[in-house]
């Protein structure tokens, strides 16, 4: 599993809980080191053990943990770069949803060995969408739940999300757009100057 994904697990614990807790988790998961390197690759077994140890220490079910991590990726100040890269996908939430099909390719343009799950948006009506997430490891769908929730906030859109756990290797999320411009949302400055 790519270091960026493993590093996210570590940063999530460190930024939302504490460095000390991460060190405990690294030990409990028997990683054999304290830090994941973002630009190296790791045996998927390590990722699984790390996630298991985090869920255990935080007392959260795996899906809830993954969703929290998705939210963290978009909303924490230490992962601002991720939020910005996602915001390049579109000027409003619907355009952003449509850009998700390209997300794995976009990610590969920047980091060519980063393999993200295939995403496919099905448009059922102007306000109803289904996002299908196909990956070798299940769990990405739950992460996308968190990402979508946080991105909707970011755009100021009001949405209802429903997670449909795996069926035949595909996880899906039903998305219902209640109001595209419900709140102000956060700013997004193309030039990268301070937002908001």
């Amino acid at each position, binding site marked *: 599993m790519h270091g960026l994904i493993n590093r996210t697990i570590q940063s999530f614990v460190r930024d939302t809980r504490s460095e000390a807790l991460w060190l405990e988790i690294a030990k409990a998961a028997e990683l054999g080191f304290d830090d994941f390197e*973002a630009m190296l690759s790791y045996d998927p077994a390590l990722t699984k053990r790390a996630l298991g140890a985090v869920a255990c220490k935080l007392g959260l079910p795996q899906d809830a943990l993954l969703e929290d991590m998705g939210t963290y990726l978009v909303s924490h100040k230490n992962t601002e*770069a991720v939020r910005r890269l996602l915001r*390049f996908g579109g000027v409003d939430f619907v355009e952003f949803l449509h850009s998700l099909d390209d997300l794995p390719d*976009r*990610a590969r*343009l920047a980091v060519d060995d980063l393999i993200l799950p295939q995403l496919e948006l099905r448009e059922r009506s102007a306000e109803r969408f289904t996002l299908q997430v196909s990956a070798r490891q299940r769990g990405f769908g739950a992460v996308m739940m968190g990402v979508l929730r946080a991105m909707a906030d970011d755009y100021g859109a009001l949405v209802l999300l429903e997670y449909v756990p795996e069926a035949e290797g595909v996880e899906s999320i039903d998305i219902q757009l209640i109001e595209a411009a419900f709140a102000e949302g956060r700013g997004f400055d*193309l*030039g*990268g*100057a301070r937002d908001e």
Partner: protein
Amino acid sequence: MPKVGDLIWGARGMNDMKPMGAVPHDLAELGRLMDAFCPMHVMLDAAGQMVHVGATLQKLRPDAPMVGKTFLEVFELRRPQGVSSMSELMRSAGVKLHLRFYDTPETALKGVLAPLEGGRGAVLNIGFGISLIEGVRDYALVSSDFAATDLAIEMLYLVEAKSAAMEASRKLNLRLQGAMIAAEEQAYTDTLTGLKNRRAMDHVLTRLIERKRGFALMQIDLDFFKAVNDTLGHAAGDHVLQNVARFMVEETRDEDTVARVGGDEFVILFDGLTDREALSRVAARIIERLEVPMPFGEHFCRISASCGTVLSQSYGQPDAGVMLADADMALYASKKAGRAQHSFFSEAMRDVGGDGGPIPAAIAPKHKGARPREERRGEE
């Protein structure tokens, strides 16, 4: 998607295009299409005056309406050079133009010009080229300022994504470099005493020779150390070595290199110090300090040391191997003279060598290893 050129040629070949219906046949229609596809275009009349300006281009100078001004008074044409009139500008049709605003910010722009049918002027499309990043920043541009087909947003995305990836790689490199320095440091350190090891000493000696500055090389051999090891054990021996290392470091300067090069053998390199008296004083102080009996448990460890020194200026072209062998010979002279002493190497030592016979430099260190035992037997 139609390009500027298509529209212009479409206008020129209007009669042929008629069946398609929507071909622009007047400038207003052309302007409308250009607004949709090329928000940074400008239309010039025959005199070179700007008659229609795309919204994004005008956004770069929000307080100075461009319509009514001549193109060449607002934009400086950097390439091709020497263009100062509309007629000259018209001759650069189809060529890549390098432009710049006359006033600040002097954003660099790229452009291409296509003439209008019947000498009615020209249309120019303008873009940021590589100054896109500064442009977006300086003028606070947003997605809707670019045509949907413009790759500007994708380029901005890529620049940010690549910067983030590079930053992560840079951090990894820094950490790897730190680990490498630590590993090198370890490879150059004698772990028992914290002194430099043989490898490090060889390294420093080579550097000193290359730098062609004067320096001194002192070999130090502990006397009676083996007796400590044999009677009180290795722990006592280690204790002694650590003390000796500390004395040597304390009695030398920061710029000197103190190395443990064998079991009880040390080399000190004195960078820039070649004064015989000063060197003799350092040797005497070291010997004096390590002769003070060192308590270990209920015992005292008693040792001494013999030293031999060579100076780089004694050689036309100093050689590390020769200097070490000569220093060893001087050290052997100290041993012969009754130990606990310091000697400088002199050519005369080559002739008297070990027991009167010359010692070939290359095998001198081997002889030395066998020596202390014999000497101790004579003494005890």
